[in-house]
Structures are given as C-alpha cells and as structure tokens.
C-alpha cells in the first residue's frame, strides 16, 4: 500500500498511475480533491502538440523550459517532461477534458517565455477542467478498491526511522481521531503558500506545515530561495487574485502613464518578447516602473485592444470574475495590477525519479523541487504535477514496513497570528529584489520570534523559514526568481541547486546539477 499525501493533480496522477498497475493507494488530503489548489489553475498546460502550424517539437519545449528556468533545472528530468507532454495531453483528451477547439481541431495559445503557441487550455479554467476529469477517473479506481480516500484528514507528520519513511500520521478533522497509515509515501502536498499568509494567489490549505516538520526531521530541500512573483495580480480581501498570463497570451499589454501619456513599457524594453517575457523578467520590469519617478506609480493591464469575440470565446470566465469582484470590464478599461507571490520552484529535493533524501519517500507536484529551475514557465506546473505524480508512482516500491518505535501523536498547529508574523518577516527578506542587508534583518527578526513562547509546529515553521532565508543569503548571484541588487549578475559558479538540510542546525550546500545524458 502506498500513501499519497495530497489530492491535487500530482496526488491524483500518482494514485491513478499506481491503480493502473494494480497497486493500491491511500489518498489523503485535508479537504476533498475538489478543494485542492489545482482547481484554481487558469491559463493552461504546455505540450508541443504542433497543431498551430508553427513547426513545434518537444525539443523546443525543452529548450524554452531550460532557458526559462535559467538553466537550474535537471536537464534529464526536463527532457522527460517535455517528451511526455503530448502523451499526457492526449490522455487528458481521453478523459474528456474539453480543450479549446476550432474547426474540429485543438488550438493552443501563447504563454510567456515560449517561442511557439504551445499552451493547451480551456478558457481560463484549465485547472478545474483537468481536476474534474481526474477526479472522475480516480473514482473509477476507487470503485475497484484500488484507491482509498481520506478526504478530511490532515497529515501531521510522517514516521521516519533510520532515514526511511514508514508511514504517515493523520488526524481525521471530523472525528479528531489520529490514525497511522503504514507504508511508503508520495508527498503531493502543494506549494509553500502558508509561509506567506494572505500574500499569495494560492490555496490556504497548503500550509507548508508538513514540509516544515519533515525538514526538521532531516528531509532535504532544494532551491528554497526560488519564489515566483507573478506579474499580474490584484488584492482581494486577504489574498491575491491572479490575472492569468493568458490575458497577455491573447494580446493584453502592460502599461503605465509617463507624462500623462500611456506608456507600454514592456514593448519598448523587450521588443522581441514584448508582454510575454518570462515572469521573473516581467515582474522586475513592473517593479522598476512602479518605482520610477517619471511614471505614475501604477501599472495597468490593457486588454481593450483584444476583440470582444475572442474574449468571449477564450476568456469569458476571466471577464466575469473581474466584473464580479471589482466591477471592471476588461473589454472596456485597463485595470491596475501588481506582482504577487504565485509559485514555489523550490521544495523537497528529489532526483529524476522523484525520490527524496529519505528512503521510501517520494515527492511530486509543487511541493517538490523539480523541472522549473530558477523560474517556472506558465503552463509547465500542471504538466509537472501530472508527469511528476506519474513518475513517482512508476518508481516507488510497494515495500512492507515495520514500525519499531512508539509513534508520537503530535498534532500542533501554528496560530494565525504566528503565521502572519512569519509572512511579514519573509516578505521583507524574500521580496522581488533582495540583498544581504534585508535578508540578515529578516533572520534577526526570526531570532527574536524564536524567543517567544512557541509550540512545536511553530518552531518547525520558523526553522523552515530561516532555511528559506539562508538559501537566499548563500546564493550570491541573481538568477531567475532570485534577484539580488548586491549581486546583480548571474554567476556560472552558482549554476547549482541550493540544498538546505537540518542536523541540529540548518546547513546550506550547493549540489551539482546532473549532466544531460545523450538521448
């Protein structure tokens, strides 16, 4: 029996893959799969299907992904990802995902950092469509007894003995009962959203707690400093609402006012890619424009030049969302946007097979550090979650385990106020532009917070937050999502994965990226 933690795309993909080969799994998540962050994904999923008459192939996809990630990703993993992408999208078609079609043919859209139209989509609701299809598929295997769901169960910790994972400790959030599931584990628990309370586009269920607890147990983490700020978000209540890159993929333009005149700065600064650079580049450009005294201080997304029929066909859901929340009609007026935290390229340090530094423990999806290097391309994480879940499931061995020690039933949680404090500190240290002074200040604040009365969960999260800051401190260069104004250049000697470990204290090392194998 394999235990899968998380029922987003990565978890579902793993469970279905295991079931197809006859291996049973437990699928554990804090809430039902319909509530996982994956349902929020908007713009699409990448695969070189070559349906747009642009002579695309998977090697183009490979090259764009490697370059977009500033050559920090494992080339062999990325090769596998891109090569398998068309098969994955074809599988999704077999599951009934209603991808956009025209004249009987599938169509794909432009996305940032990609030279070809390669992003398959369903309006601006791609994640929800994929999830509905995968949830139905998982239900089939559940009815055959190959998947057992634990849909309101929070995993508090894993059982790790002699650097081997032997099971998961979960709490039934309805009954309060604590259960231990025995067997190897695939972590698919999503990104580190919870470390930046209310400052991200993601799901509040992805608290980052489990990964923090495991870090302190010795689980190694990769590239924790690599955080993606999405160029276009809007504040609502207490979160950031994403305006999908599809807005620019379909012709939206970034704009500010200079001397009271509209100024489409991306088109001047990046005459080739224009509004569709990679996200790290667009975000820094916006940041600079917002701080430029000659400009108005605000940045707008102008979609008024896109034909209304295109909007209605491809982005009607986005139009409705903006109307609903802000009373903005994107067809009629440019609207204010700003960068916001959107994705975590870093996470559990895994190899090409998704094996972590602990035996019997695999990780896939956004919780893992894989495929995206220093900056993720839009449309690559849905792909990475499905392919990663599948790869982990294909490689994990269903071994018998024996738990020897008494299991600690430790189910602490961080208080919201503590989470707010951590988020404030991290936002200061790990902003769009970083430097030693800022990071050290943030680390100092962590030291002060450490002196307060903290429960175990809070201590673990604080340690993890420090590891994030130290990863950023030690990477003395700028690359992808990590920009340091005290080291503004990319330094070839840092073309390595930062690996954070914990053994009484935090350690940061830089590990070589594997050489690309001849294929």
């Amino acid at each position: 029996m394999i235990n899968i933690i998380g029922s987003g795309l990565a978890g579902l993909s793993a469970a279905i893959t295991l079931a197809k080969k006859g291996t049973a799994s437990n699928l554990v998540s804090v809430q039902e799969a319909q509530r996982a962050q994956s349902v929020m994904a908007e713009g699409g999923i990448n695969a070189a299907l070559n349906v747009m008459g642009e002579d695309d192939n998977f090697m183009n996809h490979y090259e764009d992904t490697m370059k977009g990630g500033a050559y920090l990703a494992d080339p062999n993993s990325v090769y596998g990802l891109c090569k398998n992408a068309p098969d994955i999208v074809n599988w999704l078609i077999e599951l009934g995902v209603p991808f956009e079609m025209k004249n009987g043919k599938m169509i794909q859209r432009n996305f940032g950092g990609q030279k070809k139209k390669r992003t398959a989509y369903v309006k601006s609701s791609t994640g929800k469509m994929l999830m509905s299809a995968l949830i139905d598929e998982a239900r089939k295997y559940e009815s055959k007894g190959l998947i057992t769901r634990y849909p309101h169960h929070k995993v508090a910790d894993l059982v790790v003995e002699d650097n081997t994972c032997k099971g998961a400790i979960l709490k039934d959030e309805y009954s309060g009962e604590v259960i231990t599931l025995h067997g190897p584990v695939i972590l698919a628990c999503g990104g580190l959203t919870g470390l930046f309370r209310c400052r991200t586009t993601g799901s509040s269920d992805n608290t980052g707690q489990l990964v923090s607890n495991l870090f302190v147990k010795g689980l190694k983490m990769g590239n924790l400093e690599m955080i993606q700020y999405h160029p276009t978000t809007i504040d609502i209540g207490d979160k950031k609402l994403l305006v999908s890159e599809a807005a620019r993929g379909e012709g939206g333009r970034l704009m500010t006012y200079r001397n009271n005149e509209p100024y489409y700065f991306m088109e001047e600064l990046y005459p080739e890619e224009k509004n569709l650079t990679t996200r790290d580049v667009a975000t820094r450009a916006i940041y600079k424009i917002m701080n430029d005294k000659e400009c108005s201080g605000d940045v707008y997304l102008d979609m008024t030049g896109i034909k209304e029929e295109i909007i209605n066909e491809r982005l009607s859901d986005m139009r409705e969302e903006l109307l609903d929340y802000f009373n903005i009609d994107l067809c009629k007026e440019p609207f204010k946007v700003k960068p916001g935290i959107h994705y975590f390229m870093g996470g559990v340090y895994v190899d090409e097979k998704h094996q972590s530094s602990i035996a019997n423990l695999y990780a896939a999806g956004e919780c893992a550090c894989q495929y995206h290097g220093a900056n993720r391309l839009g449309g690559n994480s849905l792909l990475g979650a499905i392919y990663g879940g599948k790869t982990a499931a294909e490689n994990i061995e269903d071994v018998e385990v024996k738990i020897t020690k008494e299991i600690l039933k430790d189910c602490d949680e961080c208080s919201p106020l503590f989470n707010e404090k951590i988020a404030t500190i991290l936002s200061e240290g790990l902003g769009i532009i970083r430097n030693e002074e800022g990071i050290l200040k943030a680390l100092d604040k962590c030291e002060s917070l450490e002196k307060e009365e903290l429960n175990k969960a809070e201590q673990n999260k604080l340690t993890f937050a420090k590891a994030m800051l130290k990863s950023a401190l030690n990477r003395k260069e700028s690359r992808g999502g990590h920009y340091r104004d005290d080291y503004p250049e990319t330094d070839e000697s840092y073309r390595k994965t930062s690996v954070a470990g914990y053994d009484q204290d935090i350690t940061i090392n830089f590990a070589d990226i594997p050489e690309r194998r001849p294929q």
Partner: protein
Amino acid sequence: MRIEILRRKKGEKDSYLQVFEYEKTTDDETVLSVLNNLNLREELKDINGEKAEKIVFKSSCGQKKCGSCAMLINGRPGLACASRISQYSDTIRLEPLKKFPVIEDLVVDRSIMEENLKQMKVFFEDKAIISEKRNQVSYEASRCLQCGCCLEVCPNFSVDNNFTGMAGAMPMSRIINELDKKQLKEISKAYNKFVYNGCGKSLSCVDICPAKIKIEDMLVNSNAIAVWKRYLKD
C-alpha cells in the same frame, strides 16, 4: 459591524450563537476575510468581552473556485469568499449549512455528495468522446464546485434519500455528454433513478448556484440523452 456566528463544539449536539464586534478594514472585504481577521486577533473576545475559541470554518481558494466555504450568510447559502460585506447592513449572521451534519462551528460533513457520485458510477469505463460540439456542455458541467448550496435549497434533497440533487447531476452531465454508446444504458438507468425521477423541477437550485452554472441547459442535454434516448452524434 455585528458578526453573529452559530457555533458548535466538536462532538456536541447543541449550537450557540456568539456575537463579535468587527471593524471593517476595506469596503470590498469578503465574509471570508472577516473570519480570517477575527481569528488573527491576539485574543478573540465576543461582544460581551468573554474569551472565545478560534472560529472553525473551511476555505481554500478564496476566490469562488473550490466550494470549501459554503455557509448560510444571513440565511442564504453562499460562498464566504464571494460575499462582499458591503452588500449587507450592519449585521451579518453566519450559520453552517443545515442539510448536512454539523462537525463544528461552520464546518459540515458533505461526504454524501461524493458517495452519490460513486453510487451513480460517475466515470468513464472507456475513453470519453470530446468534440467541438460537446465541449460547451462539458465545460459547463465540469465547473461544479461540489459546494452543496443547491442541495441546501432543494426541497427534494436530503442526506437520507437517494436523490442526488444538482451536485450529483452536474458531474453526471459531463459523463453523459461525452459517453460512448456502450456505457449509455447503465448510466441512463442511474441518471433516471438518482436524478431525473427525484427532481421536482422547481429550479430553486438555479439562482443559488454560486458558480452560476447553466443548470437548466445541462438538464436539457442530459435528459435528451439519458431519458429521451437521443444519443449524441458528432
């Protein structure tokens, strides 16, 4: 503002009303952010200055995409993250959905929805068939959040009978729409038994659906195929 919350401790049978004073931060604040902000207080106290436990509720996406935060807001089922507080007068009353067993505070057990889908075998035995023509219905049907708001207002739904309401009918509509002929018979039987025969067609569910799914269009399509046997051909 006055925030009234119908609360219940885990494992207990009785609910109690607790009232909080709340200073709104912005005009476009949502009910969800009110709940988050109350829990953020160093010490949560009710309107009488009595110490209160943190409020327990569910949320995930914060933007109407996951159905977690469905509750009764001034008596009407809706999503906390979709409800701007500016649309209410000075008092907002929050209660758990009433059609489902209460776990604690605003959290209810909606497992029945998944059980129903399993019972109806909402999945493809074989490959789905998609086409430009079928896509629109599939898109619409796939949007169902499994929030349960439609069930809350449905006169015919209860956790004890076998009528699934629209929370069952919507995912089912996707399957029916993309089905190949082989599976049609079995699925049609299930649709008739668990959806068509139980529905009084009063359509109270239509206006309440926070995803604004075109429920009627979905039913017309599913009825045509599964009840009137007009199998779709492309």
